[in-house]
């Protein structure tokens, strides 16, 4: 899967799993922070996202501090998925 398609799927997962009503894929910048300032997501969203990434992409997300870096942005999530699948 190419990176553009992967990022688009990640954004769809974000919109659906986190119930970001009224937003579209275009509203989410690849490099923008998702938590805190960005989309205003919290730790409950992080848990949901971790489960969704495993369910949708077959890639598990480690618990705790390291998940913070993976969830930094759409780019970071895409990188984690690509790296894990390649490894």
């Amino acid at each position, binding site marked *: 899967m190419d990176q553009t398609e992967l990022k688009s799927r990640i954004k769809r997962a974000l919109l659906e799993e986190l119930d*970001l*009503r009224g937003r579209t894929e275009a509203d989410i910048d690849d490099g923008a922070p998702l938590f805190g300032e960005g989309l205003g997501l919290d730790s*409950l969203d992080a848990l*949901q996202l971790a*489960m969704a990434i495993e369910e949708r992409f077959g890639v598990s997300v480690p618990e705790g501090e390291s998940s913070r870096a993976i969830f930094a942005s759409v780019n970071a999530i895409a990188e984690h998925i690509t790296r894990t699948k390649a490894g």
Partner: protein
Amino acid sequence: MAGRERIAVTGLGLVTSLGFDRERSFSRLCAGERGIGEVSLFDPSGLKSRIAAEVRGLDVRAIAPRGEAEDWSRSDALSFIAAREALAQAAHGFGAPLGLALGGTTGGMYETERALSAVLPGRIHPQDARRLLDFPLAVTVERVARALGNVGPTATVCSACSSGAVAIALGASWLLSGRASRVLAGGVDGLCQLTFTGFSALGAVDPEPSRPFDAGRAGLTLGEGAGCLVLELESSARSRGVPIIAFLSGWSVASEAHHVTHPEPSGTRAARVLSDAMAVAGLSTSDIDYVNAHGTGTVQNDAMEARALERVFGADVSRVWVSSSKAQIGHTLGAAGAIEAAITALSVSRGQLPPTAGLERPEAPALRHVRAPNQSAGLRAALSSSFGFGGACAVLAFEAPGAELRVSSRKLTAELVITGAASYGPAGVLSGAASARYLAESAVLPAQLPEPLSLLDPERSRRFSRASAIVVATAEGALRDAQHEAAETGFVVGSAFGDVDRSVRFLQKVLDQGPKFASPAEFPQLIASTGSGNASIYLGLTGPCLSVSEFGTSGQSAVSVAISLLELGQASALLAGAAEARDSIVDEVLGSDGSRGEGGGFVLIEDLPAALARGSVPLASIAEHHALRGAPGPVFAALPPPPGRACIVAGFLPLALASVLAKSPWRDVRLYSLPVTLGQHEAIGATALAVAVAEVASGGVEQALVITADVNLVYLTRLCRYETRP
């Protein structure tokens, strides 16, 4: 006057993982034993934790009355065992009048899951759907009430993990207002996969037995059980010659309005609730010797709670004993507030302190943790705290039986008015007098309604179901109509079944794909108090916020409970009502003939002096309100004659009740039956109340009767036009 009297605890019943009775549970608890082991009720594989505080060896068939064995859930049996024990200790003869208030969150979820696991993935067939609705939360109260006989009033309340404590506060209100002369109040929750996988998905469970207040704590251990208290006025206990175990002398129920799963970290609101409960009792911090903490063992709760205790007790915090019972009997969720209230009452009664098991490195060294088993101390007064999901807080205060009489700051409210109303129906949200249009002969309704979720701010209503959206939008309409501030206002919402479709989707995913795919963000939206928690956080309501469940009269029951909490002085204004949304499983079972609708109503009920003080002109006065079980004839016959302009608005009026009405002074009054125009659903009675308020407020009538009934329950509210007094 009853309102000045003390409330005596005359009976206690306990079922926990440590024992099927009070003595065994309490003595093993004080000895520091832990009733925690591998889950046997279902397969815990794939989950972060495999352990729980199960009540092993529960034989539901042996507990249920003959002929009902197949119908009873584990929760029904747990609550009946605790009820029986408490009533026996109080020397309550079966058949004597008794109010019954139970709190809980899971009810017959375990049995529902068993039914669901037999359903194949895909479409749910009608016969399966029916089995999925066999255990609404209110059914436990109904079964226990039937087994005991002559029970009333009744209520099933859910405020997540403070449910049991709220039920006890409600019982206190019934005694002080004279609605009951003796009350059985408590809480029950049986273990089930929904909560087990849900808390696991949230990362809130410790794979090892929980360690409340320990620096290395890593989450909670779930448990199950039931706790019941028999409450009556001191004069009643003395005249019957029944020993007084302890006094229930204070209570406070309020909300953080912060986050669905995270406690407000500073502990400010929790501290306020602790202080308020002491104030109601007339106790100061120097009178308190022990706090039975909520102490779940999660990082966030225990840190918040330690801060709240330090804030409330100041330097005195090093004198007051603190312990959590959850490392031994697990977190029993909706039962915890009642089980731990019973433990606290026993502690002050006997001067025995249950320890916090597993506590090795206290995180907050300023707190005086009970660590040694079988410790005794002279205890004058103690607090029992509960802090639940959605920020639902409740604190109860107990005093030793020899405690001196003190001046409490109890405030009882006598006169209630409605200062805001809104309905949700085919015309969307209608506020104030506008809802009266549903009584017009040919109401012109818009062809297309806005989607309920579009009425709310999308960021703050993420994950709200359609039902939650209708609840919040309608309640917001009533609050705006009343021009009332949200802060300090509470919220009581009726809900018969909860979100069945969504719960089934969650569970089917767990059953089909494994527990690792339990959705963490979905889980908090599936408990019975989701509606009140969401409303509290969205609207910023910091008063008591809870859900009430009662079949077809859920909306009315919410109004009744709100009136009782107002009478108890727990708030000066409460939003009360209900709303139901379309649900494919509920529609399949109850609406196959196309008769079901969706909608509901909310009113803001306010203490009259508070309403006048803020310059509000009430829409209507509540002249009388009755929650009746059994023969409603005498109350209907005793109604005052209707004025020249009056109407009756009925949510659901069974034929038998129509004939009772025909013998009352209101027999010739114009009757509007709302289900005919708006469809049948469990919140229709709440719509009826909002519509009747609108009709009174618009000047169409001087008085209105609102009637809604179900099989065993009849609700009657008489509204009068508010008259300004000289």
